[in-house]
């Protein structure tokens, strides 16, 4: 009895391994998503969209995994790398960095890309976004849309990645010069506490803010809920979050899909280079969901319509800011950690 089940086991393992042996030819794309998983209508979905686009245009296969916890990253990275089946392995999210630093050294021949964080290894392309520039554009919109001339911002945690958004935002509000002020940043202290996010936004609204920008992960959903409840304007981040409510007027968009697509393409075309790739508004990696070309993209992707019209004078100002940033006429400051 025991012998037979052992035999079965061997046959099953063999059957499982069979496809990987047969499909050995032609390298594939590997994608390791961040812990939020697909369906987040944000980072993961957008990265996935970029990888799908690359896989369709290049005619190569795409394999992706959705790790549940930070501890799983290293295992998946090693599995992908040791299989030698992947031309490039794309890792999404800053918390994959520690694991990748190790794995990239173990497999120096394997090409990696890391979204949103730096790993200083020659075979890793670190894809960084000048989030401060997108914050600037959003700040211009906020300054014009606020009637009370008071704007509130809710952050997840006080880390450079988040400060980068807000430094740019404050600068944008200043540049618009409408007399609007931004209150000191309110930090939730957690990414998954929408209850506190909502309370923070309520306290800002009670202090007279009528535009609230939340960059706080799931906690930010609570903050946007507060803007809905009180009927003030909300603003989103990463992907277009305006589908969450009628009065969520604009979002800074990190076009991870473009970054991922371009990097995968470069890997298959042989132009891949390790090191830091940092791009912003000029290259379209950072944008705003209310630009005409972006607006239709997001409305199709998430199947909704923006409800509040942003006056064309305001959009002209935002457009002007975009041009000036692209040409380098406006230098948007950054946190010290990002060389600001």
């Amino acid at each position, binding site marked *: 009895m025991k012998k037979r089940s052992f035999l079965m086991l061997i046959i099953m393992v063999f059957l499982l391994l069979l496809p990987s042996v047969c499909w050995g030819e032609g390298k594939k794309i590997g994608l390791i998503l961040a812990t939020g*998983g697909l369906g987040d209508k944000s980072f993961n979905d957008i990265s996935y969209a970029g990888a799908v686009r690359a896989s369709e245009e290049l005619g190569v296969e795409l394999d992706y995994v959705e790790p549940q916890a930070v501890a799983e990253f290293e295992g998946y990275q090693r599995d992908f790398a040791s299989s030698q089946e992947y031309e490039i392995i794309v890792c999404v999210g800053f918390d994959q960095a520690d694991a990748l630093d190790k794995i990239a050294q173990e497999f120096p021949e394997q090409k990696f890309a890391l979204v949103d964080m730096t790993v200083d290894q020659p075979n890793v392309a670190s894809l960084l976004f000048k989030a401060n520039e997108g914050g600037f554009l959003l700040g211009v919109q906020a300054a014009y849309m606020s009637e009370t001339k008071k704007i509130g911002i809710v952050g997840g945690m006080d880390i450079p990645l988040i400060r980068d958004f807000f430094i740019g935002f404050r600068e944008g509000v200043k540049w618009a010069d409408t007399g609007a002020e931004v209150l000191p940043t309110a930090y939730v202290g957690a990414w998954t506490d929408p209850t506190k996010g909502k*309370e923070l936004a309520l306290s800002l609204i009670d202090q007279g803010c009528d535009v609230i920008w939340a960059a706080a992960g799931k906690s930010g959903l609570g903050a946007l809920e507060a803007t809905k409840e009180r009927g003030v304007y909300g603003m989103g981040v990463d992907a277009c979050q305006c589908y969450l409510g009628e009065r969520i007027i604009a979002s800074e968009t990190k076009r991870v899909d473009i970054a991922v697509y371009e990097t995968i393409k470069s890997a298959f075309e042989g132009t891949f280079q390790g090191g830091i790739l940092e791009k912003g508004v000029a290259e379209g990696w950072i944008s705003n969901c209310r630009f005409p070309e972006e607006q239709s993209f997001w409305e199709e992707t998430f199947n909704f319509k923006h409800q509040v019209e942003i006056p064309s004078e305001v959009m002209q100002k935002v457009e002007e800011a975009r041009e000036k940033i692209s040409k380098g006429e406006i230098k948007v400051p950054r946190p010290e950690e990002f060389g600001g």
Partner: protein
Amino acid sequence: MEIGVLFNLSMLQATIRMATPLTFAALGGMFCERAGVVNIGLEGIMLNSAFWAVFATHFSGSPGIGLLAGVLSGMALGAILALLTVKYYADQIVIGTGINIFGLGFSAFVCQKIWGSRGASGVVAGLPPLHFSFLDKIPYLGPLLNNNTILVYISFLAFILSHYFLFYTPWGLRLRAVGENPQSADTAGIDVHLYKMIFVTIGSTLAGLGGVFLSLAHLNFFAWGMTSGRGFIALAAMIFGKWTPVGCFLASLLFGFADALQMRIQTLGILPPQIILLLPYLITILVLTGLVGKATPPSDYKPYIKK
């Protein structure tokens, strides 16, 4: 002017909202511990109830059904905890930790299946705020107490009833006896195991109400891990409250107050946010070390094995 920003009606309202889930969980934990079972699984019980409340509302369209589902979920997990720890003498910490891990994993799994994302659910109909016109006539207290959801009023009721039950009824006396000295309680003819099981279940149900408050009253969606440690803070509130209903309620209010205060100090920009975010925890430590004196638990939490 700055004092006016800090201490005003909106801040006190926020205090109540932040305190309500803690009150439920602290009272729940208290009942469990009074019955001689440490309920470290409060966090998981809250999270599960928060999830089931949104789940049931999503499919029924009625937040009332959602509330019921949240209550049943708390009851079910409480019954499992009670059965395993009381009847089968399983380790309370192990089972409680198991419940916490189960809560995180299970909610993510079902969330993914239904809403296609393990991070957050879709938006559902929340419990509406209630308006009592007689409260309008009372200055200060009226606007503070008015326009809350039903769960806030239930939490007030729960702590008053718990106090009465625990100290002024024969069943309360028996419950205390079961926790403090099960041997004597047994000798006096009390069914120790039955009492333990009933009150561990009741306690967990109360904690579940705290979870429902988060997902269905304060917000109207479920987010993964949205309890954010409130189950553990409730345990601290319970110890600070010395295992009494009034104590639990006041301690929860204090923690809620510290949180509401912290949020408003941040927007003044007078201190670095890291220091301000410490405030609730700092108050916890100060209170536990200095003010509360010796905390004597109401039980030794050993499983009662009938001789």
